[in-house]
C-alpha cells in the first residue's frame, strides 16, 4: 500500500492534484488535510464512510466551497474555481447522484446549457445539434435522440447526457458521485463501458462509491478518506475489500457511550415484511421494551424510508405493523396517540419549525384545544432543564440555537409527549460531541426506563456503542438483527455494501 502524498517522483505532473486541503464549518473540521491526485487516463476511487468528508471535498473541487487551506493544480497550473460553472469552464465536471438536468429541455439544449453557442442574438441551432451529436457519438451512444426532452429518457440515459454535457465542453476531469446507486445491474455494465471509454480518451475520472466490489472492478487506484483526512490508498489490484474497509473504519472508539445492562421486556413493536412504494423492499423486526435496536446501512439503503413508512409519513405497499395493542398502518397523528414518536433525519427542513420558538416546537405534537402561551413556556422550561438545552428561554426562536441544542429540543418533543417507542433517524448528525454524549446518555436512560428505541445511524461506532442489537439494511432489504456483542464494524460494513453473506 502506498501513501497518496505527492512527492516529486512522478515525472509528468498529474492531471489534477489536491494538496493539504482543509475546510472548517463552524465547530466541525470537515476536511483536515486531504491529498489526492488523478492522472490522465486513470480512474481513481474515492472511498470513505458517510460523513468522512467526500462530498465536502468534491464540492471544494467543483468550486462550490472555497478551501480554508491547501492548493489545487490542474494540469500543473494552479486551479482556483470561483463556482461550479467556472470549474466546468476550466475542465472539471461533477456528476451528482441527483442529476442536474432540466427535464423539459431537449438533450441538446441540456448539453449546451449555460454555454449556448449563438449567432448574433440567436441560438445557433445547427452548431448546437452538431455538438450534441458529437458528444453522444464520443460516448458510444449515437442512438440517443438529441431532440427528445430529457425527461423522457431512462435514468441511465440521463446520466449519460449529463456526462456528455461535461465532455462536450472539453472537461478533462469527471467526478462521478455514487453513479450506480439508482441503476440496474445492466445499466451499471453500460456505465462501466462508458467510463473505460472516457479513460481511453485521456480523461481523469474520480469515482466515488460505497460499493467496494464496483470500486475494485472499475478503478485502478483508490484513496480512503476518514474524518476529513486522506488516511491511505493504493492500487486496487493489490488489496482486498477487507483491507479497504479496515482503512475506512479504523479509528479508536471514544468513551462517549455509557453502557448499562438493559433488561429487554415484552415485544412492543413488530414489523413483518413491510414494503414502501419504492423502499424499503422488505423489512421485518421486533423491538422490545427496554431495548435499543440499531439500523445500519449506507445512505440510500432505505432506512429513512422504513422509519417514515412505519410512522405513517410515507405510504405502505404491503406488510404488517403491530404497535402495542394496535395493528395496521396509521397516520402520524395516530402514531403519536399510540405512543410512538419520531425524530426526523433532516432537522432543518422537517424536524423543526425553525422560525418558531422553542416552546412551540417542543409542544407542537401535544397541544390541548385551548393553550396558554405562559403555560406552554412553563412546561417547556422543564424539558429545557432536563435536556440541558442552552438557550435564553422557551420563547427564543429555535433557529438561533446551535445544531446540538436544536436536536435536544427535537428529542425533547418525544419526551414531552411521553411516547414509549422512539424512532430516532440520525439523531446525532452534524452536532457537537458534547451534545452527542448527552443524547447517548439519554437513550441509555430511556432504555433503562422501559422505553423502546429504534436508532437509525450511519455512524458505526455510535451503533456499536449505544445499541443492544443491530440490523443492517442493504438496497431496501433489512437483514436480521445481531446482538451487538456478536458482530463487528467490519461485518456490518460488509453486509451494508452487499459484499457479506446475504441471508
Amino acid at each position, binding site marked *: 500500500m502506498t501513501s497518496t502524498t505527492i512527492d516529486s517522483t512522478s515525472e509528468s505532473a498529474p492531471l489534477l492534484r489536491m494538496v493539504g486541503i482543509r475546510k472548517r464549518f*463552524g465547530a466541525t473540521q470537515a476536511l483536515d488535510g486531504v491529498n489526492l491526485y488523478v492522472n490522465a487516463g486513470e480512474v481513481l476511487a474515492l472511498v470513505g464512510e458517510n460523513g468522512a468528508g467526500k462530498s465536502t471535498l468534491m464540492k471544494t473541487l467543483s468550486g462550490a466551497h472555497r478551501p480554508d487551506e491547501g492548493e489545487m493544480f490542474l494540469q500543473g497550473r494552479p486551479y482556483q474555481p470561483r463556482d461550479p460553472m467556472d470549474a466546468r469552464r476550466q475542465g472539471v465536471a461533477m456528476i451528482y447522484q441527483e442529476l442536474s438536468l432540466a427535464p423539459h429541455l431537449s438533450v441538446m439544449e441540456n448539453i449546451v446549457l449555460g454555454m449556448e453557442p449563438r449567432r448574433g442574438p440567436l441560438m445557433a441551432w445547427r452548431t448546437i445539434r452538431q455538438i450534441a451529436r458529437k458528444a453522444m457519438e464520443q460516448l458510444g451512444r449515437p442512438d440517443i435522440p438529441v431532440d427528445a426532452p430529457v425527461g423522457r429518457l431512462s435514468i441511465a440515459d440521463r446520466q449519460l447526457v449529463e456526462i456528455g454535457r461535461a465532455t462536450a465542453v472539453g472537461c478533462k476531469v469527471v467526478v462521478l458521485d455514487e453513479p450506480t446507486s439508482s441503476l440496474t445491474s445492466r445499466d451499471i455494465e453500460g456505465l462501466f463501458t462508458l467510463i473505460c471509454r472516457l479513460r481511453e480518451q485521456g480523461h481523469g475520472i474520480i469515482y466515488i462509491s460505497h460499493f467496494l466490489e464496483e470500486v475494485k472492478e472499475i478503478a485502478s487506484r483508490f484513496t480512503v478518506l476518514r474524518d476529513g483526512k486522506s488516511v491511505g490508498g493504493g492500487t486496487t489490484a493489490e488489496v482486498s475489500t477487507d483491507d479497504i474497509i479496515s482503512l475506512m473504519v479504523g479509528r479508536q472508539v471514544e468513551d462517549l457511550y455509557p453502557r448499562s445492562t438493559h433488561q429487554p421486556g415484552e415485544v412492543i413493536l413488530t414489523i413483518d415484511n413491510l414494503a414502501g412504494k419504492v423502499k424499503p423492499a422488505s423489512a421485518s423486526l421486533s423491538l422490545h421494551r427496554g431495548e435499543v435496536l440499531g439500523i445500519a446501512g449506507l445512505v440510500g439503503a432505505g432506512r429513512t424510508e422504513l422509519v417514515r413508512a412505519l410512522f405513517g409519513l410515507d405510504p405502505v405497499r404491503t406488510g404488517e405493523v403491530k404497535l402495542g395493542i394496535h395493528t395496521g398502518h396509521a*397516520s*402520524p*397523528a395516530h402514531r*403519536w396517540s399510540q405512543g410512538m414518536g419520531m425524530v*426526523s433525519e433532516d432537522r432543518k427542513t422537517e424536524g423543526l*419549525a425553525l422560525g*418558531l420558538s422553542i416552546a412551540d*416546537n417542543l409542544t407542537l405534537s401535544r397541544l390541548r384545544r385551548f393553550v396558554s402561551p405562559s403555560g406552554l413556556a412553563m412546561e417547556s422550561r422543564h424539558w429545557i432543564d432536563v435536556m440541558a438545552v442552552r438557550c435564553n428561554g422557551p420563547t427564543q426562536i429555535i433557529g*438561533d440555537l446551535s445544531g446540538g441544542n436544536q436536536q435536544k429540543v427535537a428529542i425533547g418533543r418525544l419526551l414531552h409527549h411521553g411516547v414509549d417507542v422512539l424512532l430516532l433517524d440520525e439523531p446525532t448528525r452534524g452536532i457537537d460531541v458534547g451534545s452527542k454524549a448527552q443524547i447517548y446518555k439519554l437513550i441509555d436512560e430511556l432504555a433503562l426506563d422501559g422505553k423502546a428505541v429504534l436508532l437509525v445511524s450511519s455512524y458505526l461506532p455510535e451503533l456499536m456503542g449505544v445499541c443492544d442489537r443491530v440490523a443492517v439494511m442493504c438496497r431496501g432489504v433489512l437483514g436480521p438483527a445481531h446482538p451487538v456483542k456478536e458482530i463487528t464494524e467490519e461485518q456490518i460494513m460488509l453486509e451494508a455494501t452487499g459484499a457479506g453473506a446475504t441471508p
Partner: protein
Amino acid sequence: MRQSAKTTPIQNTVALARRLGILNILGPIIGLVLVAVLFSALRPHTFPTAANASQILLQSVVVAVAALGTTPIIIAAGIDISIGATIAVVSVAVALMLNAHWPPLLAAFGGVGVGAMCGLFNGGCVTLLGLNPFIVTLGTFLAFRGVADVLGDESEVYTHSNWLNGLMNPAKAFFLPWGVWIMLVLAGLLILVLRFTRFGRHIFAIGSNEQTARLCGIAVNRVKIWLYILGGAFSGIAGVLMFSNENGTGDPTTSKNTPLTAIAAAVIGGASLTGGQGSVIGTVIGAMFIMAIRNGCVQINLPHGYQNIVTGLIIIVAVLMDRLRNRGKS
C-alpha cells in the same frame, strides 16, 4: 448556522424586541405615525381632528375585515386573491335575500354563510386537489365575480332601507361607528384564536414548516380547509359591510382592488408571504396606514391617479420589508 462569537448590545436589543414580537408591528406603527405627522403638517386644520380619525377608521373597516380574514391564511403560507370577488357575491346575495323579504339579520348571516361557502370551495381545491392556492384563487377571482354578475343580472341590486344600511354610518354608537366596533371585535376574537387555541398554533406551525407540522401529527389539510372557510366568512362580513357602505346596494363590480389592498395591509402589518409570521394588530394598523394615506391624498387634492401610484409603491415597499425581515433566515 448562524453562530457569531460575539453579540453586540444592539444585536441583543434587536433579539429581545424580536422575541417580544414588537419588531414585527413596530414598522407599521412608525409608518402610521409618519403619515399622520406628514398630513397633519400639510392640512393642520382638517387632518388631525377626531372626526377625521373616526372617518379614517370607518374607511378602513371593509379592507381591515377582509385583511383579518386573509391574515391566518398568509400565516399558514397560503394566499387568497378572490376576496374582492367574494365580497361582490356576498353583497349581491344579501341584496337578493332582502328583496326576497328575509329579515335583515338573517340576510346578514346568510351573506356570511355565502362567503364561507366561497372559502370552502377555495380550501377544497387547495387541499383535496392539491393545487397552488394562488392559482386556485386566481381562478375563483374570476369565477366568483362571474357568479356575482349572474346573480345580479349584470347590474346593481337595490334594496329598501333597513338597519343594515346603518352599519357603516358615521353616526357613533358608544364613541365609534358600528362598523368600527365590528372590526375591533373580530380582531379581538382572531387574536384569541391565534394565540390561545390549538388551531391557532397549528396555523403558525403549518406556515413555518408544513413538514414539521405533518411530523407532529397535525391534520394539515383539515386545518387549511378551515382557514379558507374562516377567510371566506370574514370576506362575507366584509361583503355585508360593503353592502351597507354602498347604502344598501348589491354591487357585482365592487371591491376590485380589495384583495391586493388586504394582502398589502397584512404584509405591512408584519405577515410574511413565506408563512409562519403575522400579527392581527399589525394587519389592522396596516389597513389604517393605507387608508390614512388615501384620506390624506384626497385632502391635499392629489388626483386619483397619483393616489394609486402612491398606494402601489407602498405595496412594493411592504413586500421589500417582508424580504428584508426574512433575509436572515435560510
